[in-house]
């Protein structure tokens, strides 16, 4: 068979149902093979969803991966197609998401001659992927494609790229599809070391004021139930990093919500008071910890992570560290820790955490009918079923979601935390909807971010992937403007977006529904209608350009030093 047929053959064997891509000169052979899979009525086989920009394709694949727990696949041609993918791959890399990117490349005999639409994709991708393959013979294609899926999905999920020269796609050879691939230095993580598990169990059991900090790793490992069971057994409150939001139901009595730069002020203050901090699946990002030298100086920190290179990278002083998958680690810990008297022991501490958090809630209760960013986000939780998937773009709206949008069910909140990519949310929402067509999917956006990948509106309407976009429209690049307010003496340099475009008319131009809302009741009715609509809806919510995200941890500050107003 041809290399292109081998590519699609691997996609079939891996159970791929959808790929998000854009054709071009260098990947046409693959698209020719996919032609037989495109049945517009029934979507039999592998459905191809045509993005209008490869960055969107990569974000769609990323959203698909986060929503389904499977590998998301994106495709692009050589040269500019591939370079357009890089932002999306970097986004997935920073957030540890399982994406496979397949790019066409100029023929092998053209490589290195600066051919038309040639660029060093493997070179560029090396820094933003777990691995980048380039098969130079047809017979290498099945192995490398299979390896790409294997590497992307196992241990710490990260994107993998396969760059296939056009002559390799077109060439014919006998091929074999391997059942598994083996990398001698890349094996599944061993089971958690029982001695270390015992030490951790002992330490948390004897803690007077424990806190569990859950990061994105808990979600990646699908350890939601284990975390909840463990926290309840231990009677320990749970805080999350931004990427950990959703790892623990935020309406649970033990939930402390998010901590970090734009986390809850009260939670940030509680952390240094705990005597044992059990950190699972978090990499101590600077956004989470504030100045690392000031992070919880009097606390015993335990660090559990699936990536051994993260242990000691940012936080250098864990008293115990364990390299393990979060799910297995928690399962083993559950066996070690016995229930019993802990409820009474922790009563004082739990009461304190509740009192502290209650203070926060009453302070932030907002009245009034004019829409603010904060109000909109808070109300949204009431208008959406708990199973609805919410994605965000990047900026003030994203941080308001961190602070005010309660995430309750697993796999319902996706945001670009590591790279902070504006334009992620909308295509990711489309990818998520393809993975989970039965739930409403909502992208919460700022006006600046939405324009970065607005082209996905065309995909959304043409491919009939309905989502709801709520644009918090302050006609500004809000987060940058906020920093300019706080740290640059209100010198608003190049942050005014203005009144363009009219998002309602923009939506209609693409064949979607557009609506503007100015009050809470209008918002509620627009959202309720939108999530039932078979067509994408953009809800334009004008808000004040002066609204800030507070509290905020300024750069260089420790987590107790938040700005509150």
């Amino acid at each position, binding site marked *: 068979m041809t290399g292109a047929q081998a590519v699609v053959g691997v996609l079939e064997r891996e159970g791929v149902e959808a790929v998000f891509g854009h054709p071009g000169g260098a990947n046409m052979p693959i698209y020719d093979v996919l032609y037989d899979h495109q049945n517009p009525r029934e979507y039999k086989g592998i459905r191809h969803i045509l993005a209008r920009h490869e960055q969107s394709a990569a974000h769609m694949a990323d959203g698909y991966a986060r929503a389904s727990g499977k590998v998301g696949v994106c495709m692009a041609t050589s040269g500019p197609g591939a370079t357009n993918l890089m932002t999306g791959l970097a986004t997935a890399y920073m957030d540890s998401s399982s994406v496979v990117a397949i790019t066409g490349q100029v023929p092998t005999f053209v490589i290195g001659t600066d051919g038309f639409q040639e660029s060093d994709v*493997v*070179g560029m991708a*090396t*820094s933003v992927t*777990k*691995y980048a393959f*380039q098969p130079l013979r047809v017979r290498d294609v099945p192995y490398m494609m299979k390896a790409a899926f294997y*590497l992307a999905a196992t241990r710490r999920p990260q994107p993998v790229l396969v760059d296939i020269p056009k002559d390799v796609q077109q060439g014919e050879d006998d091929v074999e599809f391997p059942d598994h691939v083996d*990398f*001698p*230095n*890349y094996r599944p993580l061993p089971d958690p070391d029982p001695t270390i598990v015992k030490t951790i169990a002992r330490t948390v059991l004897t803690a007077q004021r424990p806190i569990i900090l859950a990061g994105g790793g808990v979600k990646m490992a699908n350890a939601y139930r284990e975390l909840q069971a463990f926290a309840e057994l231990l009677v320990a409150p749970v805080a999350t990093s931004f990427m950990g939001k959703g790892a623990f139901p935020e309406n649970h009595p033990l939930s402390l919500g998010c901590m970090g730069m734009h986390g809850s002020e009260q939670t940030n203050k509680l952390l240094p008071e705990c005597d044992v901090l059990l950190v699972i699946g978090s990499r101590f990002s600077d956004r989470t910890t504030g100045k690392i030298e000031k992070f919880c100086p009097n606390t015993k920190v335990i660090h559990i992570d699936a*990536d*051994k*290179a993260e*242990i*000691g*990278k940012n936080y*250098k002083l864990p008293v115990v560290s364990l390299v393990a998958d979060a799910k297995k680690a928690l399962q083993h810990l559950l066996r070690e820790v016995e229930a019993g008297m802990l409820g009474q022991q922790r009563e004082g501490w739990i009461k304190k955490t509740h009192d502290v958090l209650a203070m926060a809630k009453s302070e932030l209760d907002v009245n009034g009918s004019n829409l603010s960013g904060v109000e909109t986000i808070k109300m949204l939780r009431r208008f959406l079923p708990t199973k609805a998937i919410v994605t965000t773009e990047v900026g003030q709206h994203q941080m308001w979601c961190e602070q005010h949008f309660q995430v309750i069910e697993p796999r319902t909140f996706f945001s670009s935390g590591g790279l902070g990519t504006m334009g992620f949310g909308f295509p990711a929402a489309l990818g998520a909807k393809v993975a989970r067509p039965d739930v409403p999917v909502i992208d919460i956006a700022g006006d600046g971010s939405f324009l970065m990948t607005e082209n996905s509106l065309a995909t959304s309407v043409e491919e009939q992937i309905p989502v709801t976009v709520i644009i918090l429209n302050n006609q500004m690049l809000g987060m940058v403007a906020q920093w300019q307010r706080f740290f640059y003496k209100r010198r608003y340099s190049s942050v005014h977006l203005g009144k363009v475009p009219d998002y309602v008319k923009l939506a209609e131009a693409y064949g979607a529904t557009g609506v503007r809302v100015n009050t809470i009741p209008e918002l509620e009715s627009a959202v309720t209608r939108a999530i039932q609509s078979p067509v994408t809806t953009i809800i334009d919510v004008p808000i004040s350009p002066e609204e800030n995200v507070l509290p905020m941890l300024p750069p260089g500050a420790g987590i107790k030093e938040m700005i509150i107003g």
Partner: protein
Amino acid sequence: MEDKPGVLYRITNLIRRKSFNIESIAVGKAETPGLSRMTFTMVSDYSRFDQVMKNIDALIDVRGVEPLDMRNAAVRELALVKLSPGAPATRPEVINYIEAFRGNIVDVSPDTLTVEVSGDPDKINAFIKLAKNYGLTQVARTGAVALSREMTLAE
């Protein structure tokens, strides 16, 4: 690590983007066909060193990483050093020094000498320092290679 194109790139790219402070790199074929052995040297505190090891070990193409230092490994390097000793009277002096370092003269001309010196990196450093007094013009060093010592002083 795998002896394949692109592996060297991946490793040096990692070093670059993480700003690891590497003093030298030497790489060549290893005892097993299809594999290369790469030796790095770095001067750092343990925590940084540990990070480098873990990151390199995480690379798919790398088979394993072994920490070595002067106490538990045989470490050797080779350098070619070109000098222009100047006055002919100093030549015997220079040649004495070369003998003391067990170097070999591999090239001569009326004005220059090229010496091959090998040994542990400190010996090379010492020779180069000395050579600066004798019109040192060029140095080409291979970077250190090392293998663990099987017989330690403790035994």
